[in-house]
């Protein structure tokens, strides 16, 4: 277990995130042409969508670590899965905020139930907030680790199921009023900018993950030492 304060992975990822995000933002603001329908404000797409994909990646990573925990019973995966959920929730909140701003600028409302991604992230936000409640109200130990892992696994299964449910609900419960001109046919410049921004947010998530993991490990080690002293 590394508890050294020098964390080379985190530093390298943080530098990469800084460079990529700065470059990506510069590309998004000065290089990419305006979108045909939405114009300048469509550029929030280069922040909103990479952040959303990064949140998915974090939840997927958490589930992968949870699966490793359940198959090997190796307790160190517990903190890794927990930290990944933690990062996923942070990026999920960012997705909700940026999506809400985008909805406000293009439709004049802060929230629209017709917007699939936002509704899905609201469901996921509620789901993973309950993950924290679960962790805080169970005694630390192997059983808490496996319960959290099972819950994290439920999360990645819930993502496609909820997505399907939200699509089904569109016809009857939440009719789609608005449409967006993002998506299928991205031009080359848009695709490149998008890729740079996605790499940047992924690197940022990685840096935060590595940093937070070290912190949580130090915390865990500290409480072990405290118990040994008592």
């Amino acid at each position, binding site marked *: 277990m590394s508890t050294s304060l020098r964390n080379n992975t985190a530093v390298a990822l943080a530098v990469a995130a800084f460079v990529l995000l700065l470059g990506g933002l510069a590309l998004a603001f000065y290089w990419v042409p305006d979108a045909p329908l939405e114009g300048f404000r469509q550029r929030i797409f280069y922040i909103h969508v990479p952040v959303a994909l990064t949140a998915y990646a974090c939840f997927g990573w958490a589930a992968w670590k949870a699966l490793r925990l359940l198959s090997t019973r190796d307790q160190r995966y517990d903190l890794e899965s927990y930290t990944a959920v933690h990062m996923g929730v942070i990026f999920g909140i960012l997705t909700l905020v940026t999506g809400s701003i985008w909805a406000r600028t293009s439709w004049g409302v802060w929230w629209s139930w017709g917007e699939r991604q936002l509704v899905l992230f609201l469901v996921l936000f509620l789901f993973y907030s309950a993950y924290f409640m679960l962790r805080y109200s169970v005694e630390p130990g192997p059983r808490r680790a496996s319960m959290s892992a099972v819950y994290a*696994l439920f999360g990645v299964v819930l993502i496609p199921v909820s997505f399907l449910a939200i699509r089904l609900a569109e016809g009857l419960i939440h009719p789609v009023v608005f449409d967006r001109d993002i998506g299928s046919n991205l031009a080359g410049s848009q695709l490149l900018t998008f890729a740079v921004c996605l790499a940047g947010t992924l690197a940022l998530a990685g840096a935060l993950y590595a940093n937070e993991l070290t912190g949580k490990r130090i915390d865990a080690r500290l409480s072990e030492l405290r118990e040994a002293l008592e």
Partner: protein
Amino acid sequence: MNYLADVGTLARKDLRLELRSRDTFLSMVLFVVATLVVFSFSLPAETVAEASYGLLWVALLFTAILGLTRAFAAEREQRVLDGLVLAPCDRSAIWLGKALAVVAFLVLAEAVALPAFALFFEPVTWELVAAVALADLGLAAVGTLLAAMAAASRARELLLPLLLLPLAIPIVVGGVGASISDEPGQFLGFLALYDLIFAILSWASFEYVVTE
């Protein structure tokens, strides 16, 4: 065969306990009827008829949560779970037995709730009955696993609704869709898919929730 016998024994244990005390089932019935009455006062007069189906699904979901918070009460208070985990049977049989007992409670409560709904609000269609039956399976499958988690926590009854509600959103979508849509087939299919996915997942992961 042995596995099924274990499941049957475990489910019978819960049903017999309930037959003797009758507290969970009766409180579920009273709760769902009271909720429907409250809902009848919360709908403005000119609301469309479809809205009452939505309220029915909320009432059914809350009733299921009420029943599920009691699902592991005996196990926790009398420390039965330790004994069950030590018993020479597959751990997933504990989940299956409990889930079957939960389905039985839900069906009994709905046997009162649906006629009451037909009396107070709108007629009960076959699609609605089919959707309720499918939703019961999904709620019991996921709910039993989460109730076992909640029973091990300090927050207990407080935790279960927080864990269950986000997972129950697809069930509500499928149920409401099947009740009000002109093509209920796709919603019933979605509910069946949900049941299948989450039943397999809960069946496979229950062991990790009750053992160290």
